[in-house]
């Protein structure tokens, strides 16, 4: 199928992120979300930016933990793990102080970094 082939290609590119371009992309998306939140507050920008964030980091986590599964399930599982990670780091931020815009941005950065690191670690583990 063309669609699945297309998605497989995207997934492969994201997970073989040797120069960490997609991690960087993820950071840029976080900055866009932050700018949107403080300047425009528009879902028209927030929704697509968040989708890209979920796609990149969901693929990282899905690939790290569910390499043997079908691409569809990898994406679903990866997204769920990402939501769990966001929730947990958000919870820690709430317990430590609160979840205002600054700490929310930090939560997104930390989650993106962790997802990328987990992907890299699992990739090197699988390679050895």
């Amino acid at each position, binding site marked *: *199928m063309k669609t*699945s082939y297309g998605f497989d290609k995207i997934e492969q590119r994201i997970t073989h992120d040797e120069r960490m371009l997609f991690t960087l992309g993820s950071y840029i998306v976080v900055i866009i*979300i932050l700018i*949107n*939140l403080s300047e*425009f*507050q*528009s*879902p028209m*920008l*927030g*929704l697509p*930016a*968040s989708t890209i*964030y979920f796609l990149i980091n969901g693929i990282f986590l899905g690939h790290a*933990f569910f390499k043997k599964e*079908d691409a*569809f*399930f990898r994406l*679903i599982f990866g997204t*769920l*793990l990402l*939501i*769990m990670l*966001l*929730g*947990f*780091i*958000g*919870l820690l*931020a*709430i*317990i*430590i*102080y*609160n*979840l*205002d*815009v600054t700490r*929310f941005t930090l*939560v*997104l950065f930390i989650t993106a970094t962790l997802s990328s690191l987990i992907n890299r670690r699992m990739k090197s583990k699988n390679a050895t």
Partner: protein
Amino acid sequence: MPHSKQQFTKLLRVGELLYLLLVGLSFSLLFLSRTDEAHTVWEVLNTAFIPTLFAATSLLLAILLASEKVNYKLLFIIVHSILMHSFFSVVFPAGDLSGQQMYLGRIRLVYDSVIFHGWPSNPLETVQSQIYAWFNGINFQAALSVVFARMFSMDFLAVHLFLVPVLWGIFTPIPAYLITYTFTQNEKAAVLASLLLSAFPYATYFGAISVPNSLGYIFFFYSLYFMLKNLDSNDSKTTFLILAFSFFSLLSHYLTGIMSFSLLFLALTFKSYKAEKSSPTTAKISLVTSFILSASLLPLSLIYLRFFRPVTQTVFTLDKFYELPPEEIVGLTLIGELTYAFDLKTILLIIIGPTLALLWMTYQLYRFKRNPTANHQTSLYFLFAAFLIMLIDYRILKLFMEGLPLNEERLWVFRDFIAAPFVALAVYSVVSSLRNFLRAKSPSTITVAGLKKSPKSIVLRGLSLLLALNILIPLLLGGWIIFSLSAAYPQVAPLQTTGYELEAVRYIEENTREKYVVIGDIWTIFAGEVIVGISNPRAYYFDEYNKTGHDLFVNMRQNPSPQWMLLAMNYTDTSVAFFIVTEPRLGAEEFNSVVSRGLQNEQLTVAGVFGAGKLYVFSYRKG
């Protein structure tokens, strides 16, 4: 590709397109049903909505039974599932009037950075209570709702209301599919299971309200799937995932967490039983022991919950056996809470799925007795044991315990999660039996020319079976799912938070610069917590159980005067007080009397009239 297959694919694509149109129409009709004032969704649903949803569901079932890629089928089920769990969030302006509004009242304070270090805002007395409160589901849900609302830059109320319906819709069909597929390797039965989950009313209800318990159910379902997977594998990742999902299940709600860990304990014993070769007797004894321990974990945990939550005073008791008549005890044992005040249709809709699942499991176990080498025996035994634990625990909680911090019926959702795959298997076996019969009795390819040549009896039999397979079964199952919705979404309820109550609360919030307090009934408080949160020092609404707030409202109702408003301002350290009175809540006569007395009092100002005169806001300023 053979011509007949090409024709079938074309027909399937047309069916899928039609399904998408129907589901789009259903969403539109649901949005058209949105109202400012209603008690139940049934009062206001567009008359075309249920027939359209029924047609869409039946068509989806026909697609599921046809040959199509699993991913597409699951995508359709996800869309359908989101639709079926969004009734409250779409139709009512503030969602269902239940725990979700109370949670929103607290979570809103986190969103607005009114409180620090999570809910509750004040530190608790003991260390263990504080740790329990920090890692309570409310703070976890707050984290999710706040993160999503900020990411999407969307209205916080909308994000909170749709959080669980969307997550439930996307994520619960997947474990239902995977659990069924794990022990059957049958894709069609597995996709059927993921849709039939919506035929279980309690599961549907919890998927429609945004409370931490619902989030916990989602994680529990995934932990169950990975437990099942772990029975046949030694992958360390699977073990990590079981622990991760069980942990998140506990983080969301203690009930789901405890159930995850009790089943984890059971799964580990099943795994060692499977591996045990030398001493089967010892293995069997350890299996029985772990079953008893797993079943006891929930009741015992609820007793010891007081260590973390001093308000919980759960005890074991035999009082119900002394107090209730024997027929009631029998009723409670057999069908639980359904023995009270429900009609036969609701009882049937709630018990039909689990009963069918129990019968099917028993039949499968009987077959295993005759064929001890059959595949996936351990998985089935494990699921059967887990199902029994749910049945036993429900009865223990219902009959032998008192002072529970939750209603025992929440266990039915776990039971339904385990039952759904077996119901799908039972249904699928009927479908495949019919199909085999059709193949045996009909010409291999039915063509018009072939039909003309065949004997009349064979043609009739073939056509009627074809009709049964592709039309009757989807219609029957579709009907079952739609009927289940009538038991999932309440038929009787108090008036939900109205549009004009929200409008009044918003108006006060947007037009008051000083710190203010609002005196109102419990319904006003619900509306207030949706917009500004509960006990917000800047915009104060008394919490639901606050006696002072209640007394102030009663006094204002009897004598609308600034005296009580001043008292409220002094109590909450605010400089403006509002008094809200609503006609449908008080009744026309009392409402008119309170309003006319309020209007006669020159010290009170009418801050606003909403809902075409159904709601009055009076205000009074200090000094």
